[in-house]
């Protein structure tokens, strides 16, 4: 009797261990790679995207708990194209399944080329230059692009009825492309446009703004640059007080950070923004995203975190689908990503054959009394624009 019981326990234990073993073999750990500027001149935006990636990993580990787990290995590219390439090569050597990250079209270009050579998917929201997708790399994907930003800026300027616009833009790939696209579209619609290019080393914008004031005499000033450029331009404008009706910018402008840090400069200024501030989330995924972001970083999410989250979450879901289909190890991830059709925090995302998300259209927000109010397009607006109105 004792012997029979012992045999039964042994057989049961063996059966249980085989069952558990089989289960464990199905659950997989996936290592993603991330190459980002965590130091150098793009550290601010790189760290913002990194926060979004971390939130995506945290949320994916919750939603795939017991089935799969995800980790991310991050390498700082120090805002250097050469180091971006080295980072991608290191990540490829360490066996990551794909790469999420990248900021700055001039860094993403060579870094994603290195990923293409290594056969790795590279997904980003940090480079909007058209040249990136025109290369036709099958492993390159991005969720935003110049067109989406240009549409928003042009749409707002048209809604204002601006007849003369001065575009003040940084001479980098992405910023130049966007400025030229806005210029072409506005010129085609009969708007008189003055183009003013500046270098990243420019810290005193008064001579430039004086040209805008005395020569262009525009209805609106459009800025395409980054945070410290916007602050320099707005300070110069505040000193010289050109007779304009609006000041419009793009990324990194209609943010909580800018509202808190430069309240006197930001009032009435417009910038691209997917969300109002204070943030109002309604979708369940968005609510979970905001709660996770707050838990991890003790602050409200910003647009960088949002984009970093979306690109990484789409990648993770595609990795799982490819793994379940048995194509992940056979280079099936790009095809699986190309099948993506998802409603995300930044709107609908699908990818064309070049990896571009042609659905991408941004929204425009305006700083109003320490808040960011969405004012364009009408169907996304949660307030009315103050127009004409400037910070001075």
């Amino acid at each position, binding site marked *: 009797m004792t012997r029979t019981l012992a045999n039964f326990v042994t057989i049961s234990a063996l059966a249980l261990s085989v069952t558990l073993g089989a289960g464990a073999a199905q659950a997989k750990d996936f290592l993603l790679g991330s190459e980002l500027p965590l*130091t150098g001149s793009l*550290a*601010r935006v790189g760290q913002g995207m990194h926060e979004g990636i971390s939130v995506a990993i945290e949320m994916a580990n919750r939603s795939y708990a017991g089935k799969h787990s995800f980790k991310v290995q991050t390498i700082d590219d120090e805002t250097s194209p050469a180091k971006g390439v080295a980072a991608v090569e290191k990540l490829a050597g360490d066996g990551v399944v794909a790469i999420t990250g990248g900021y700055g079209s001039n860094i993403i270009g060579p870094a994603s080329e290195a990923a293409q050579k290594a056969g790795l998917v590279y997904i980003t929201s940090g480079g909007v230059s058209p040249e990136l997708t025109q290369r036709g790399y099958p492993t390159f994907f991005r969720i935003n692009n110049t067109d989406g930003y240009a549409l928003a800026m042009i749409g707002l300027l048209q809604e204002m009825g601006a007849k003369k616009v001065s575009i003040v833009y940084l001479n980098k790939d992405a910023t130049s492309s966007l400025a030229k696209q806005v210029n072409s579209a506005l010129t085609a619609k009969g708007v008189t446009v003055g183009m003013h290019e500046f270098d990243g080393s420019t810290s005193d914008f*008064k001579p*430039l703004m004086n*040209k805008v004031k*005395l020569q262009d005499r525009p209805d609106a000033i459009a800025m395409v640059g980054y945070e*410290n450029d916007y602050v320099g331009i707005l300070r110069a404008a505040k000193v*010289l007080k050109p007779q304009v009706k609006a000041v419009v910018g793009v990324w990194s402008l209609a943010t909580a950070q800018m509202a808190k840090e430069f309240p006197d400069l930001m009032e009435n200024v417009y910038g691209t923004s997917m969300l109002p501030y204070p943030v109002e989330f309604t979708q369940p995924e968005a609510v979970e995203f905001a709660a996770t972001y707050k838990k991890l970083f003790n602050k409200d999410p910003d647009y960088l975190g949002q984009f970093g989250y979306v690109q990484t979450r789409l990648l993770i879901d595609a990795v799982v689908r490819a793994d379940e289909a048995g194509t992940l190890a056979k280079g099936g991830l790009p095809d699986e990503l190309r099948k993506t059709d998802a409603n995300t925090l930044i709107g609908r995302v699908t990818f064309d054959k070049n990896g571009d998300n042609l659905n991408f259209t941004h929204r425009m927000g305006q700083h109003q009394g320490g808040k960011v109010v969405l004012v364009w397009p009408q169907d996304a607006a949660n307030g009315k624009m103050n127009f004409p109105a400037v910070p001075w």
Partner: protein
Amino acid sequence: MFELTLQALFSGLLAGGYYATVAVGLALVFGTMRVINLAHGELVLLAAYVAYAAETSYGVNPVMAIPVALVIVGSASAIVYALLSRIRQDREINSLILTFGLGIILTNAILSIWKADIHSTSDPWFQDSMVVADTLFAMNAEVASFVGGLVLMAGVWWWLNHSWQGRAVRALSSNRAAATLMGVNPRKIEILSFLIAALLATFAGFAIYTGKTVFPALGHVLTVKAFIITVLAGMGSIPGVLIGAVMIGVIESLTVTYLSASLQELAGMILFLVVLFVSPSGLFGGGRALAR
């Protein structure tokens, strides 16, 4: 057109004053020790971040933060000197490597403590405009920094020419061995130079925090600009720094006005190369030029 030119010259003058304030500390240390302190820009940045921390954490006006910043930047500068003084061989080359490394450490320390966001003073007085004759426009911060910088540089120049320590600095700069034989203690004079450079860096940091924006990667940019001006001036020349900086500021400003803002850095570099081509030792160079 006349208005544009006048504003360009005025903006260039103010920008030159700001550049000179950043560069003069580098020139002073080079004049005394023949060392290019590649961490100088980061010391300027450290002062700016101390002003930021004082303003945001304690509500202190950035002007009131200058003494605290001076103590912190002075201590950091003394550490840089202590490490530099341990170099026994090939000091000019090894000091470049050492100070470059210290600059990276300082940048990353600033990044770790204060993160990568951009900052500037929230005191509106500094950003308010000052208008001269309805034609010339500037922020209060720019004019205050320009005047303060001039006073500080004049003070350093007077100190170099009329005080015993100042003359000792010049003697050391001119002939180290002879100065030592005449009773000058080189270590004391060198550390004094570093502390004066720290004072200048502190003021420059305050000027940047109130008139521009600060972010961790800025230190390297400041060092490069300061180095260019120091070489343009003639290595170690204090008045040369002011004139060279104003020349750079004005040429950049005129380039923005009449050509393109994206060419301003190039215009400054062309001026730099032309001056070095005509006068290889800089505007006021030629041997040991301190205080000339």
